[in-house]
């Protein structure tokens, strides 16, 4: 598996990428895309940061950020 370097900063934060649009449930304009782990494993979600409504919820990589060298065979 490819090496994952230890982060340089003492603490780490999840990158939540802004997404255009408004929440269909509450109308807020703070949608973000990021991976989550829940029932069923990893998903890439677009969620409203105001009310937590999932605008989209797509299956992500089986093992999250972990990539196996075997996957390149």
């Amino acid at each position: 598996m490819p090496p994952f370097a230890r982060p340089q900063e003492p603490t780490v934060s999840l990158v939540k990428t802004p997404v255009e649009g408004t929440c269909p449930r509450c109308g807020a304009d703070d949608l973000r895309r990021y991976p989550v782990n829940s029932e069923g494993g990893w998903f890439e979600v677009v969620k409203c940061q105001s009310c937590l409504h999932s605008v989209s919820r797509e299956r992500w990589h089986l093992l999250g950020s972990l990539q196996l060298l075997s996957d390149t065979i």
Partner: protein
Amino acid sequence: MSDTEFTQRYGTDRFTASVITNRLHYVVEHMSTGFLREAFSPIIRDWYDFACTISGPPEQDYPMSVVSNSLVVFLGTMGDAVRNTVIEYGPENLRPGDVLIGNDPYRTGTHVNDVLFIYPVFRDDTIVSFVNIRAHQLDMGGTVPGGFSGTKNNKYEEGLTIPPVLLYRQGEPVRSTFSLIFDNSRFGDILLPDFKSIYQQLHLGARLIGENIDRYGSGAFLGTLQYAVDTSAERMREAIGRIPDGDYVGTGLVDADGLDETEEFRIKVTLIKRGENIEAELSGTSRQARTSINASMLDSKTAVGVAITMLLAPETPFTSGTWRNIDMACPPGSLLNCMPPEGASMMFWEITTTLVTAVFDALNPVLGERAVAGDYGSLNLHNATGVLDDGTPWATAAQCGGEHGPWGATSDGDGDSYTVLFMLNNLDPATEAIEHDVPVVLLRKEAATDTAGAGFHRGGAATLRDSLWLTDASAYSSPFRTKIPSGLGANGGDTGRLGAVWIFPAETANIRERGKLIPHSPEVYADTVPVGGMLDARTKELDPDGRYFYFASQPSWDTKAGAMFRYLTNGGGGWGTPFERDPERVLRDVRDGYVSVEGAARDYGVVVLGDPENDPEGITVDTAATRSLRA
């Protein structure tokens, strides 16, 4: 949901679904009983370091529907572990009689010693479920015998990593897989009979499932697998919905990793609660540690599920449905979502236990009377090796340290003393078995006075444990949480006291000449060797504002025959206002040694008269003085 809707969704009626669910619980407990009875490994036999589960088929997305009453860190991870392992191997490649295994922490959680065994159950050439066992193996290779160490620098030092691979193919052992494991393990002769027993328990589970399908039909069986997880999900959703919306922040601290004491490791969790959903945002947590104290995402997910269940819906069955309304949001490279090769995880539970504390810290303020106080927070593992006079090597793991300690108090009553971490749920090895196998005398394991967090309900008392070693020994000691109390108070209760670890060298302990136990009092520690904890630099007694002594300041703690280790765990937190505790309950605590006369006055405002040491039944409460003190 009407009865008709229920039957349409689950293929059976409510009553039958409940009956099948209970019968499946019987299946996993029957498997567990069989394995416990047959196991040779002491970590299975004496510690219950295994778990059994039943998962649904691929078409249902592998729901973990039923779990045994056993190790929580396994139960929480096995749902995802089974799914990940089967998907990577390919469910289409499985045949009746196959046993699929794996142990990679990044794929399946926990650490490499915990091997997952998956047995697909077929009906009419179709997989209808999986019966699974995860069991800790005594040794999987790596740099440290037995594996337990917080000093490993990367995954290569941890031990053998097993990707999804068959151990049995259509009922026949796969010799190459057995050899792969046995050729890398120091204790293959113990693993072999336990593997055979595991195989038989998987067979038993599959047979009992088959009997259920024969009796109730495949439709009812498969519907029940879904019903079981939906039940958990519904209860959790309703429980989450009952707390106010908000962003709740909690923290926890791990003293150091196994490299040096220059870096502390902080956990931060923000529980973003909206309606029926929670997002557990773990940003702000420390980067992954330099040595093997990290946790994988699945381990962190387990901790959050356990903590929220305990706080909000403790009666809820633990299934994969627990997380339906909980999203874990954590970056890779975090202490709570470690990545290979540097993010080693041998001591993962120390981190996830701290995450449980952080969730309690976050939610307790909003829960009021439903708040739960914290536990002792660290397994305080003691692992040691040596040689008997005749040259026979000996080893001990997780038997003689501070592995057992107190829980915090709740609205229901006082916290238990001498029990297990919230995150584990294991057995306490019998003293007789330990002393039979290891050259040690367990001199003491008792509740330590004035260590429990005071409260209307008192926390559990810290465990004071003395072990006298009869040969020279080399030990690893792992008290990870001695800087900040883990026994958080709840609903106005006080925190539990901090613990520590000391070595009394042979000439200091001098147990045979002394002829009695060494008391736990400030004057006895000056000539000890501190192993870990916040202590006065000169007297070596407990001092929360003193100097931090680092548990891995030496490669190993080497002692001569006659030396004594003393472990004092953290105390459990109290619940409710201490000065409102019934004075008669305080009196009983003084009589039983949980609280001193001085502590009763200081922490509870209760004045106790008499001599609890020499006349415990003669002590009384000075009612007038107590009323005055509490005014």
